[in-house]
């Protein structure tokens, strides 16, 4: 049953909201500015920062917008001097013991304390007493570092581990201005959703080891994408620059992932590291793999293919468009599916699904008669040319070595992959072709429940890499030229990306 709508006025603007909505939700709906730290749309209300102060007509005392429900006809404002003073002071209280580490703080540039202080603050602090000193650089586990001095005790992170992951690693220890966030003994913050706490931490108190001190955020551009780590297909933001991708963050989508994403998915981009990637095609002779241009490799593959029926091994990691074009041009070919069914734990009831492919749905729909790899085992001697459209995310293919051995038994083979497959035997008529990652191509994935989601090319990181569409063009046309995109490979200015933090 749809909820009853009620009307109210926010800063003079009329709006209808669902019954039971809070004032802060109405502010957000109207895009009216309101200062707040502790409230987060994906968590329960804690009402501790006391910054979302509003004045309600007919009520003398200021109220917090995050814990006050809208009533029919309510007139709310946060424009009066009274509210502004309250907010200014609220920010002052937040800052008096804050270390103001901004020059060495990773959050600088995306810090809500900075932003909101610029917008609502008083600029001229009255604090001249000595600040409370707290502990810095606390290791919370394999992924996260805590600076308790910077923490504003909004409890978002605690609520996240209590309410979303229900893993309860975090708590507030001590009280008053000695309060500190911390992990319970023997309970490091290592769960698969832990880095979400870094995202929701409004300040630089929680920082993630993989991003800490790598880049200043104002040097990064942000694009939208989809995670390819499992069939949930969480919506993401990708922060990148010409040196590469630095960070992936969840992008809100009510239908798919809400506010969160898992850490497994978040780390996938690290395989994009230029040092790991295959940046040219490889052709084997009986001793070595030789580099060659992708285009040249395909000229050779084309001759191998002449008048023969190619067989294809497919994984669920390609786009709808790629499967479609493949089917269109190779309708008479034989297709096998390389799946990982039964390999991974069942759905974790949050986001991460057993099927670690973004697009098994379309693969199975377009290739209803696709054969299992056991069939390939039987056919292996009769296969003239095998294309293996390998997975982008090798970490979800633990049987890579075993299956590569199987593939290696055919006469000629074209392996498509992001990185070099070191298990592939070196033998004549074997090729390895660099593939485009999901950050480098445009297309659509269909997630576990049939939702189609589009990805856009963010940037090309490798001008020799191809998508399935490119492959078809390379095989079927004569003069197709790979776009000479400017690839990233600019020298990293700061740190080496797998350097240790300490």
């Amino acid at each position, binding site marked *: 049953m749809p909820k009853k709508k009620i009307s109210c006025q926010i800063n003079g603007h009329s709006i209808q909201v669902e019954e039971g909505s809070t004032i802060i939700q109405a502010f957000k709906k109207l895009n009216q500015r309101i200062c707040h730290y502790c409230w987060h749309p994906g968590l329960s209300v804690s009402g501790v920062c006391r910054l979302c102060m509003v004045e309600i007509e007919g009520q003398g005392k200021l109220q917090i917008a995050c814990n006050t429900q809208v009533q029919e006809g309510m007139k709310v404002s946060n424009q009066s001097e009274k509210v502004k003073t309250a907010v200014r002071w609220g920010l002052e*209280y937040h800052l008096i013991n804050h270390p103001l580490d901004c020059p060495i703080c990773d959050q600088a540039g995306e810090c809500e304390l900075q932003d909101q202080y610029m917008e609502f603050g008083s600029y001229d602090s009255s604090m001249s007493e000595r600040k409370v000193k707290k502990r810095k650089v606390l290791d919370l586990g394999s992924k996260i570092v805590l600076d308790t001095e910077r923490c504003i005790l909004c409890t978002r992170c605690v609520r996240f581990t209590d309410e979303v992951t229900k893993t309860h690693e975090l708590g507030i220890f001590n009280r*008053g*201005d000695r309060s500190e966030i911390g992990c319970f003994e023997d309970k490091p913050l290592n769960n698969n959703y832990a880095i979400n706490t870094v995202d929701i931490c409004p300040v630089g108190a929680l920082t993630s080891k993989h991003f800490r001190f790598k880049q200043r955020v104002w040097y990064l551009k942000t694009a939208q994408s989809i995670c390819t780590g499992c069939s949930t297909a969480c919506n993401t933001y990708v922060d990148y620059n010409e040196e590469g991708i630095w960070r992936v963050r969840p992008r809100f989508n009510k239908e798919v992932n809400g506010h969160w994403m898992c850490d497994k998915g978040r780390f996938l981009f690290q395989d994009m590291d230029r040092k790991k990637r295959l940046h040219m095609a490889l052709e084997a002779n009986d001793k070595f793999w030789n580099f060659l241009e992708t285009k040249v490799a395909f000229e050779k593959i084309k001759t191998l293919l002449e008048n023969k029926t190619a067989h294809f091994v497919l994984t669920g990691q390609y786009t709808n468009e790629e499967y479609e074009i493949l089917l269109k041009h190779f309708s008479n070919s034989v297709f096998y599916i390389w799946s990982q069914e039964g390999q991974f734990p069942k759905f974790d009831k949050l986001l991460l699904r057993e099927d670690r492919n973004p697009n098994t749905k379309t693969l199975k729909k377009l290739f209803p008669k696709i054969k299992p790899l056991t069939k390939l085992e039987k056919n292996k001697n009769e296969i003239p040319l095998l294309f293996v459209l390998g997975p982008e995310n090798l970490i979800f293919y633990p049987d890579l070595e075993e299956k590569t051995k199987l593939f290696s038994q055919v006469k000629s083979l074209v392996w498509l992959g992001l990185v070099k497959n070191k298990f592939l035997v070196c033998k004549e008529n074997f090729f390895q072709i660099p593939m485009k990652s999901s950050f480098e191509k445009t297309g659509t994935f269909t997630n576990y429940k049939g939702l189609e989601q589009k990805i856009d090319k963010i940037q090309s990181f490798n001008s020799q890499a191809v998508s399935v569409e490119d492959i078809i063009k390379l095989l079927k046309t004569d003069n197709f030229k790979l776009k000479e995109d400017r690839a990233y490979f600019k020298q990293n200015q700061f740190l080496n990306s797998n350097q240790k933090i300490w």
Partner: protein
Amino acid sequence: MEHKLLTEHYHRKSYSTLEGYKERGGYQTLRHALLKKPQEIVEEVKLSGLRGRGGAGFPTGVKWSFLPNNKEDRYLLCNADEGEPGTFKDRMIMEKAPHQLIEAMLISAYAIQAKKSYIYIRGEYQKAYLLLLKALEEARIEGLIGKNILDSSFSHEMDIYLGAGAYICGEETGMISSLEGKKGQPKLKPPFPAVQGYLGKPTIVNNVETLVAVIPIVKQGAKAYRQIGTERSPGTKIFSLSGDVLNPGNYELPLGYSLMDLIYDLGGGMRAGHSLKAVIPGGSSVPILTAKEAERTRLDYESLNELGTFLGSGGVIVLDDSRDMMDILSIILDFYHHESCGQCTPCREGTGWLSKLLKKVCKGMSSQRDWILIQKIAENMQGRTICALSDAAAMPAISFMKKFRNEFEQCLYENTNSSVKGVKESKHA
């Protein structure tokens, strides 16, 4: 003159035992109450005009009627945390007459139809705790707690829970959190405890003295109760008199009693050669009164409100002319700084800031600007937080600054004897 409505028999040693209590008519009111309809008792308490004695002064009967009118499980919690500096009346009640509290709780629990109640007692009150434990045992054996109390259809269980010494666990929702096994932190309201309290169930929290006052109301009726005290502040209240008086102690007085009579007649006045400087009338949280203001006030909710202060918990702290007000304020603010639970930013940071500033004042290191600053910090801590601890720290800060500006100025860097580089001797380190 004291009016010993609740404390009449407190001088008898045996009153703390079941036998001694029963000898003086104990548990008769319970028997009487169980014959009435629960709603009748609620109405009687409403009519009596009884207001909470824990500090906030909320009308008790009205609070009780906030409970949802259904069969849902509900709890009665007795607030025996008594942490407010200057207050020690609940301790006396529990030590002198534990059965009185138990009887009062049974009547109240019956009125609100709670099957279970807890006494949340302050961690330092070991003696009262042990006495109450024993009294509970006696009452259980006697069939006063348990199934079908006094052959009625009313069954009730009662337990006692020892706190761990945090002032904030005296705040009703802080107490609920603590009782639930969580960190003792107040909860965001709404929802209010009467709707969603202990374990998410409707809950009534009442102070020890409030509950005990229910006995005479049920026994003699609201009308008789209203004969005592003033029109708008009926009944008696136990005042804990402390500080610079010759006879400190607990005094049960009809509301509306003169503060001067309490200090001079009952309390014996100041030490020889000293005169009254100020009075904190309701526990350390309320605004202070100067001697001049104190002279004309009466001890009831309205009279004190007129002077911009509160009856609070009834902890009357008397200060004579030997006291340094900045020192006193510094001690008070240290207390709130130490006790803030730290959830709400204005309270967490404000209490610390104020306490630092007052230390600076006491050391003779502050400047004129701090006079305004202290008040501004305090003003902006008021009415902005989850519980009233923040206000409790702010109110003394503001009132001390306003009313004792001269003493603040004596502490200024420029006014202190600068031979010792401006460091004024502080009476508390």
